[in-house]
Every structure is written in structure tokens, then in C-alpha cells.
């Protein structure tokens, strides 16, 4: 049954000259799982909001074309009946929770719909049970983790018994485990309840194989619609980075039936007898593409050295335990670890925001333990998880100049160079908060880098970035590396870490449990192995990135032929 029929939908946000949506045609059937993909600012979120009726109801602006929902134009639906039909989950759980307790949050939508109290109590109870939130029902939403918050948001929407679930990057603020849990729920709702799901997501590796149809958007238009396997077989270079890594590796082979998951990929290797050849290849060339410097062999003195560092927020229970780490000039290090492992705490301790109870920090051999952060600003640049905290001037140029002004300097040349490097020149006279998340990220990075610190500490820089922007960030960090910057990246994104870093550190419960060359740390890891590494498990453990996997596959094929 046709649920949505979108015809020639065009939409302009208020006071904008270019359309956010441009002649969209789209049919959605009941029970479908649709993944909306495309670069930032391509109109995915706008389309989702249009399907929920928030565009133009909440946003204003000019609309052309029609959206019909269950045969009736969306404009004819009153708000209450539409809210019963269509549920919407947004990016940031913080900005969707209104009530103090989880239970009340779930009841909020039902109260608004005027549901009778006995029915409401049943639905709240069921919703809590379905999402395993019963134990948290009385908890204040302030004390929940990000994953728990987003689960509460989903539970609150589901309690309203919608037919359609619209999700706008619901996992972008979550760690991988919580993200996986949330997507599992979404998949179950689609499979077992027949709920129609329309999902916007940047990290597609988990949800790509789940979707019945991928809708690719670019510049406010839909450029491709079709099942995931068909899309993977297109060999369209523009779409490749929106697929999961395994599909990226195989899509270049021009197969009809492209493997989309690790399981399918390994079966493909077996069926084509590529696995036996791999064993031989492994013997012949154990480190075919190893080109990384091993940190322990670096002869130089460390630029930054942490010695037996311990820190406790409450002064009693340490959340950093005996940290010994050295960072060398021109090295990119990725720090991985679960939520609460102490990654952010470690960065904050290095920049001086937190003072370690024990141990010492040396910069260039000078003890900087307990030095105020403002005194380190010239040597250490710190980019926190929230780029918005950096942006408050009227133009991007002023924003970047502010960093120099604090130190009593002004250097238009350096500003121009920085904007060129970060590819934000075209934004220099616009408001820094007008940009999409990737642009905000780069502007914030610019404000940090403009003082040319030797060391850059980046906390989750890939949050909310689309795959293209992630590639650009990787390139940018590489460029900075060649300029001699030392970069430490805290991230949840294993694929990104495998691509950008030469050294990987894993924190667990406040202590370093692994530190070394990316291959030795990431390969064979149960939890931190990138997808393509799992593809070649037992065949070649040194494969970590899509490029490495592709060339490995070529070598294997040549050998079989």
C-alpha cells in the first residue's frame, strides 16, 4: 500500500534564494525501510521534515508540489492526527527531552494527544518494557548516558503508536555500542511490527544492508533510488563512500551480486577460492603495504610526555590510572576506548583544564603540570566535542582573527592561509553558525589552528560529518602532519582511526591497555577491528583500510588467475 506520494516537491527556507528541495518525486510503501543518504546539506533532513509536516508548518518558507500521505494531501491533515501517524526522532537527544523523568517524558506525547489515562498508562508501561527502560523510569533525564537518552526519545515517539518512523541521524551523538543498540531496535520495529522507517544516517556501515531501498540525494534532488545491492553494483564513484567498507571493496570489481556484509564477503572469498591463495600470499609478503613508522623506534625526544599520570574527579576514585604516554613530532595518534574510559579526561588533563593528582606532564622536556590552560594555548590546540562553543562572532574571518587578538596579534596573511588550508575561504564573510556541521567543524578547527600550536588535540572530530567530509578531514590532518604538527585524535570511529593514524592507543577503564603501530593494535582486535580487517581475518591481518583491502583483493585475484 502506498503511504507517501511526493510529487515535484520544491522548498525554499525563509529568506533563502536557493531551494533546499528541488523537484523531488518519491513513493514510499507501507512497511518499507528507506535509507536517505547524501552529503551534508543535500536536503535529507529537509525532506524528512517535509514528510513530518514540520516543513512548512514550523519552518515557514515557500513550498511547491505536493506530499500525499495515505491518499490525502499533507496540508489537509490536522496536526494532532498527523502526530499520531508520524513519529520523528532527531539528532541530539539533549534537545528533545523536556521532562525531568523518563516515565513522564514518554507520557508527554500521549498527554498532548489527549489519550485517556488508563490507555496512557498501558502504553507507557509497554514502551518502557519494549526498550528495557523500566529500571530507569524514575531517573532524572539529566543523569542518563547519551544512548539511554536517545532510547528514551525513541520510546516516547513509539508510545504514540506511529505508522511511520522518521529518524534524522539518530546515532550521530552516540558511541558505537549505543548506536548499534538503537539501530537494532529500529530494525526490529521494521521487521516485527511492520513499521515504515525512513532513516537519515551518515555512518552507513550498519544500516546499509538493512534498508530495502537507498535514496541518494544531492543538491536538493534525488539522484538515485534502488535496493542497496543494486546501488553497490553501479560502480558509480560518487556513491561509493556512502556504502559500508566491505561493499566499497567489492563494488570496484563490477560484480552483479556485491557482498554487503562481512559474512557475505567472506563467503565470496571462499567461493572464488581466494582464501587459499591468500594464505600463500601471506607467507610470501607478510607486510605488503606496511609503511608506518613504529613509535618505539623513533629516535627523537618526545614532544609531549605523560609520566605516571593519575586523575580523579572526586579526588578519590581515579578515572585515569598510571598513564605513561609519549607523543612525537609529526605523528598522528588515535585514542580509542569505550564511553567513560577516560579519553576526554585525558585530553582535558593535557591542556591543563584538569590538574592530575599524581604524575607529571612534560612539553619539550619542560614540566607543565598544573600550568593554566591559557598559558599553553600557543603550544597546544584543543578542539572539544562541541564546535559551537568556538563560534560566536559575526563572520568567520572575525572568528579566526579572535584567536590571534587574544594574544595581541593580527596577521591577515596567516588568516588567509588558514582559510585556504581548511577550504573555508568562501565562507569568510558569512556567519560561522550558518554552516552545516562539517563546516562548523572546520571553522572551529581554524580558530584553534590559527595560533599555530605544535600539538593538536581533537575530541571526536568526525561526529556528524558525512563520509566525504571525513575524507577531507583525513586529508587535512595528513597535510598538517607533513607540516610537522603532532596530532592526537580521540575517536569512536575505528575506520577513521585506521585511515588517519599511524599509532593507536586503547584506553580501558582509565588505563592504557594497548599502544603501538596501528596494525599491531587494530588487526585481530575483537572489538576495534575495522570491517575490512574482519573480512580478511585469518587470511591477512594487516589489512585495515578500504584501499589496502582493494589492492589485496587485486593481488589475490591475479594469483588465482
Amino acid at each position, binding site marked *: 500500500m502506498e503511504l507517501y506520494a511526493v510529487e515535484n516537491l520544491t522548498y525554499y527556507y525563509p529568506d533563502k534564494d536557493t531551494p533546499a528541495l528541488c523537484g523531488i518525486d518519491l513513493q514510499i510503501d507501507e512497511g518499507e525501510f528507506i535509507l536517505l543518504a547524501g552529503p551534508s546539506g543535500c536536503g535529507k533532513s529537509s525532506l524528512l521534515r517535509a514528510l*513530518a509536516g*514540520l516543513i512548512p*508548518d*514550523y519552518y515557514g518558507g515557500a513550498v511547491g508540489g505536493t506530499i500525499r500521505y495515505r491518499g490525502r494531501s499533507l496540508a489537509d491533515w*490536522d*496536526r*494532532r492526527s498527523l*502526530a499520531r501517524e508520524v*513519529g*520523528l526522532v*532527531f539528532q*541530539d537527544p*539533549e*534537545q*528533545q527531552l*523536556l*521532562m*525531568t*523523568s523518563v*516515565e*513522564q517524558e514518554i507520557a*508527554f*506525547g*500521549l*498527554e*498532548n*494527544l*489527549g489519550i*485517556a*489515562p488508563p490507555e*496512557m*498508562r498501558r502504553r507507557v508501561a509497554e514502551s518502557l518494557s519494549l526498550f528495557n527502560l523500566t529500571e530507569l523510569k*524514575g531517573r*532524572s533525564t*539529566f543523569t542518563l548516558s547519551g544512548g539511554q537518552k536517545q532510547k528514551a526519545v525513541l520510546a*516516547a*515517539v513509539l508510545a*504514540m503508536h506511529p505508522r511511520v518512523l522518521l529518524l534524522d541521524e539518530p546515532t550521530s551523538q552516540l558511541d558505537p555500542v549505543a548506536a548499534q543498540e538503537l539501530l537494532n531496535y529500529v530494525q526490529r520495529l521494521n521487521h516485527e511490527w511492520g513499521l515504515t522507517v525512513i532513516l537519515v544516517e551518515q555512518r552507513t556501515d550498519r544500516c546499509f544492508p538493512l534498508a530495502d531501498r537507498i535514496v541518494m540525494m544531492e543538491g536538493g534532488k534525488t539522484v538515485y533510488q534502488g535496493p542497496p545491492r543494486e546501488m553497490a553494483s553501479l560502480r558509480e564513484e560518487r556513491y561509493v563512500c556512502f556504502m559500508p567498507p566491505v561493499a566499497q571493496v567489492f563494488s570496484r570489481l563490477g560484480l552483479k551480486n556485491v557482498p554487503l556484509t562481512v559474512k557475505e564477503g567472506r563467503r565470496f572469498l571462499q567461493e572464488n577460492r581466494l582464501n587459499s591463495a591468500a594464505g600463500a600470499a601471506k607467507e610470501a609478503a607478510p607486510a605488503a603495504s606496511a609503511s608506518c613508522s613504529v613509535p618505539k623506534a623513533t629516535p627523537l625526544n618526545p614532544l609531549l610526555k605523560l609520566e605516571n599520570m593519575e586523575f580523579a574527579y572526586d579526588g578519590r576514585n581515579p578515572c585515569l590510572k598510571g598513564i605513561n604516554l609519549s607523543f612525537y613530532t609529526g605523528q598522528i595518534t588515535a585514542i580509542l576506548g569505550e564511553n567513560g574510559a577516560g579519553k576526554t579526561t585525558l585530553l*582535558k588533563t593535557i591542556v591543563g*583544564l584538569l590538574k592530575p593528582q599524581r604524575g607529571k606532564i612534560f612539553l619539550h622536556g619542560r614540566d607543565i603540570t598544573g600550568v*593554566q*590552560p*591559557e598559558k599553553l*594555548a*600557543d603550544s597546544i590546540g*584543543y578542539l572539544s566535542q*562541541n564546535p*559551537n*562553543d*568556538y*563560534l*560566536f562572532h559575526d563572520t568567520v574571518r572575525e572568528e579566526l582573527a*579572535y*584567536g590571534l587578538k*587574544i*594574544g595581541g596579534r593580527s596577521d591577515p596573511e596567516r588568516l588567509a592561509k588558514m582559510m585556504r588550508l581548511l577550504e573555508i575561504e568562501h565562507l569568510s564573510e558569512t556567519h560561522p*553558525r550558518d554552516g552545516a556541521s562539517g563546516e562548523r567543524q572546520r571553522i572551529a578547527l581554524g*580558530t*584553534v589552528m590559527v*595560533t599555530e600550536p605544535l600539538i593538536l588535540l581533537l575530541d571526536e572530530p568526525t561526529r556528524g560529518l558525512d563520509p566525504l567530509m571525513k575524507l577531507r578531514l583525513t586529508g587535512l590532518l595528513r597535510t598538517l602532519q607533513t607540516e610537522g604538527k603532532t596530532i592526537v585524535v580521540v575517536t569512536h570511529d575505528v575506520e577513521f582511526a585506521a585511515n588517519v593514524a599511524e599509532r593507536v592507543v586503547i584506553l580501558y577503564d582509565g588505563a592504557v591497555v594497548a599502544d603501538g603501530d596501528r596494525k599491531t593494535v587494530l588487526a585481530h582486535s575483537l572489538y576495534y577491528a575495522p570491517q575490512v580487517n574482519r573480512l580478511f581475518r585469518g587470511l591477512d591481518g594487516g589489512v585495515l583500510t578500504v584501499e589496502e583491502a582493494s589492492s589485496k583483493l587485486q593481488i589475490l585475484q591475479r594469483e588465482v588467475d
Partner: protein
Amino acid sequence: MLIYQRRDIFFQALHPATTLAYLAVVVAGSVLLTHPLYLLALFLSVFAALAASGGMEDWRKSVRLFLTFMAVIMVLNTLINQTGSTVLFRGPLFAPLGRVVITLEAIIYALVMGIRLLTVFTAFMLFNQAVNPDRLLAMFALLFPRSALLVALATKTVPYLLQKMQSAAEIAQCRGVNFHTGSRLVRVRNRLPLIRVLFMSALEDSFNIGESIQARAYGSGPRTSYFRHRWRPGDFVVLIAALAALLLIVLSLLWGWGMFSYYPRLDQLIVSPQQAASLLGMGALLMIPALVAWGWSKWNFMRWKI
């Protein structure tokens, strides 16, 4: 500390309206009455209620700041107010104030004022601990849907903004802004950008919260309320005690028992047996909620029956 937390206390088991009624009587009494013994009784009752709810820890932590503030007011009143007639100390001439004269009446008056403020403060602390903001919203949303939402957002916003302020300040420091040295003017000027960050983020956030509320049909028609309160004997006990105490307060106002004049000379404390009876009655009635709350936390029997 000022965030509501669900805890196992008597006042949280009551209907928010009951707790509000009780606290309203205490606050009204301490604003309207001027008699020191009445005010003392009001303070003791609400203090006992807070103590029975396990709120002493928070009270002790936040009372210090409040006490210094109160002490300043009391000292000022003693120094400036010269209408009393029992002079304890006659000081030198100060140009703007005239002669400093400290009288017994001014000291007593300042002390009583302090107790009055402390009562209101303690009542507020109890309110914070006992009344679930979600339930309060639910209650008021039935009466005034729009303003209730505003109140709910505002209560959530304060701790949220504090968090944001903290992180923005940390970032500014890492960018080299110095908050700790320099003249006062420089330090204030250095903090100004934080206000801008906060303001911009708050605007963006409220836009997003508004969208989420819109998507969940707020204001799309008549609302229902999730909370169903099972009225329990405790509600009636507290309500009746509060109403009876209110009656005595009104009577004491009408007959003048609750009034006391401090200047030029202190009144006699107790003038008639009726006055003594009304004072004791009011104190006893208002002590009932505290006693019940205490019993509720001690005996399971009482917990089930009340």
C-alpha cells in the same frame, strides 16, 4: 542540589497540591504575622518537616551563603534603625548616618526578621525536594497550558545553561583567554564572549526543542494528564492541618494576637490565655506534617496506613 530527585520521602508521596498548600500556609503566616513566637513556631515546624525528609544536608550546604546575606541585613538594620528606646550603645557621629545608636529593640527586630527570611528559605528548600516539577507541570498544564510549558522549560534551562557556561569557559581558556588576572574591567570584558556563546547556543537549542515539542503534538488540542494521584489519608491529614492552621493565623491577625510592636519599646510577649492557646494550636497543627513524615520514614505500618 537544586535539581529534583526522586526519593523515598513522605512529601513526595503526597499530591503536589497538598505540599504546596502546606508550604503556602507557612509562607503566608511568616509574611503576615509579626509576633516573634508565632514566627519561631512557623520556622520550627517547616524546619522539622525538612529534617524529617532528610533534607538537612542540602540545607546546611546552602544556608551558609544565605546566613551571611541575612547577617548583613541585620547589622544594617541595627545600625540604621534608631526608633527603639532602650539604648545599649551610643556611638560617634558618622557623616551620612548621623549618630550611631544601637537599641535593644532594633536588635530583636533584626533577629526576628532573620527568622522570618529563614522560614521562607527553608520552605523553598522543602518545595524543591518534595514537589516533582513534572507533576507540577501536569497540574498547571490543565489550568494554563502555555505558561506551564514555559515554566517547565525555564526550570530545565537553568542547570542546562550552567553546564553550557562551564564548557564555553573551558574552551575560552584553552584559546588563551585569561579570566583570573588583570583589572576587574579586563576580567569582565574577557567573560563577555561567553555570554554570546551561551546566547547563541540557547537560541539554537530552544528552536530545536520547540520543533520536537511540535512534532509530538503539544498544543494540538485538549490535553490529558498521566499522573493519577491516589489520594491517601496523608493528603487529608496535611491539608486539614494546614487549613486549620490558616484559620488560626487569620483569627490571630483579626484579634491582633499575631501582631507585635517592636518600637519604641517591645510589647509584652503574651497578653492573654486566648493568645497563648492560638499560638500553641497553630504550632501544633503545623508540626503535624513533620511528625507524620518522620513516622512515615520510621515505621512501615504508618507508611501503609497514611
